[in-house]
Each structure stands twice: as structure tokens, then as C-alpha cells.
């Protein structure tokens, strides 16, 4: 039973968590970080996607 639970966590939950964190990092970087180079490059998209921009 313990082995089964651990296997389910290893094969589903941990990969899901890993990819979710990666996805969140991508969104934060492309959509929210205020560094001026990133802000200027992503400016139009941030407005169009409804992110707080300035």
C-alpha cells in the first residue's frame, strides 16, 4: 500500500508539481517581472493579456 502511494506520487504528483512551477516561472518572467528590458519587450502583450503592466 505504502509502495503504491509512493509510486503514484512519484509518477504523477511530483512531475505535475515540477512542470507547474516551471510554467509559473515562465509566466512570471514573461508577464510580470518589471526589469525594463523585459517590460519594454513584453509591453503590448502584458496589456493585451490583462496583466498589471506599469
Amino acid at each position, binding site marked *: 500500500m505504502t509502495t503504491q502511494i509512493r*509510486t*503514484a506520487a*512519484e*509518477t*504523477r*504528483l*511530483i*512531475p*505535475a*508539481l*515540477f*512542470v*507547474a512551477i*516551471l*510554467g*509559473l*516561472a*515562465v*509566466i512570471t*518572467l*514573461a*508577464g*510580470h517581472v*518589471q526589469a525594463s528590458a523585459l517590460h519594454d*519587450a*513584453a509591453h*503590448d*502583450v502584458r*496589456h*493585451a*493579456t*490583462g*496583466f*498589471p*503592466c*506599469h
Partner: protein
Amino acid sequence: MTPRMMCAMRQGSPATKMIQRLLVSGLFAGAAAGLIVGLLQLVFVQPVLLHAELYETGALVHFGTSEVVSAHPELPAFDAVRDGLSIVFTMMIYTGYAMLLLAAMSVAEDRGAVVDGRTGILWGVAGFVAFHLAPGFTLAPEVPGVAAADIVGRQIWWFGTVAAAAIALWLIAFGKGWTAWGIAVALLIAPHLIGAPEPSQFAGPVPTEIAALFAARALGVGLAAWVLVGCFAGYFWQREGERTGTAQNV
């Protein structure tokens, strides 16, 4: 290293295969949806944004002047660098969204949900509600030039509202009983009762007609975007599952 270990490494553990399946389907879905969405934004949102910028920069003024200002001025032409970057960043953002969606899809599938291109559309609509409509209900999509409160406060509110709405929708879809649904309703409403950081005074130079059209266009294209990314994510999730042999319901 024994041949057996080599073989195990090449095939990968179940978890490694699952990560590969998530990443590959996320990249395909995000890039495909992002490219289409980037073009949709360029056609439907960008002209409104450029029009607003003419007022933001003061090139056009609509109050306090005796001049009659045309509602259809000549807008800046296509800019390869600016608009190209917009498409690249749209692809990045929707790849991030696809990864979040797929992470949730994979856990839901493990609990018995069917995930494919068709059900992916429902996931996409839910993603639109969580990531676009819920924060936009109080923090409406901002046209350039609007007065707004401090950026950090708005970003914290944005992330909090998105997280609350995402949990709420999960509870509505997979929760059992009125307790779960009650919590979901509370999570959906609470951020808007608390309220987002607002500016102390209004100073936007952009005509309300443009600002309203911008918000409507941003939300409309956002819905199309999420339906696309949900559908593609479900489709590629199925396809990658069959290819890598990690699918549950082939």
C-alpha cells in the same frame, strides 16, 4: 555501469517519462496556441492599443481643445521588432499557461477524468475564467495611459485572485458536496469584496470609448486563446501519452 542500468536510463523512470510527456505537450500546445493568439492580438487588440498610445503620449488630445479630433487617425505601421517580440512573448506566456493546465490535467486524469482535445476546451474555458476573467472583473484590462495604483500591490492582488479562482474552479469541477462548492463560491467572490489596489485619482487621457473597446477585445481574444491552448494541451497530452506509453486510457 551495467547494460541493464544503461537500458533503464535510456528508457527513463516513469516519473521522467511523465515529465517528458508534460513538457513536450506543453511546448507544442503553448507554441501553437501562442502563435495563433499573437496574430489575433495583432489584428484585434494592437490597433486599439496604438490608438490609445496616441493619447497617452499627447499626440492626440480629446478634451480641452477646440480642434476636432478624428476617431480614425492614422496608426503606426507594422513594426517587425515590436510586433515580432509581441508574438514571441505571447508564445512564452501561453506555453507557461499550457504547462500549468497540463499539470492540473495530469492530476485530474489520475483521479479518473478524461483528458483529450475535446474536454481540453472545457479546461481552456476554466483557465480563461481563472487567469483572465476573474482578475479582470475588478482589475479591468488596462489600456496604456490609465491611472493605476502601485504595480507591486496590483501584481500581488492579481496572483492572489488567480490562485483563489483556480482553486475554486477545481472544487466546483471535482469537489463533492455543498461544503466544497460553498468554499468555491467564497473564493470566487472574496477577492472582489476585498478589492484591488486602486488609484487615488483618475488621470487617464485616453477616451473611454477606446478603453472600453480595449478591455472587450482583450477579454474576447483571451477567451479564444484559452480555448485554443486547452484544446491543444488535451490533444497533445493524449498523443504524447500514446507515443511514450504513459497514457492511462488508450
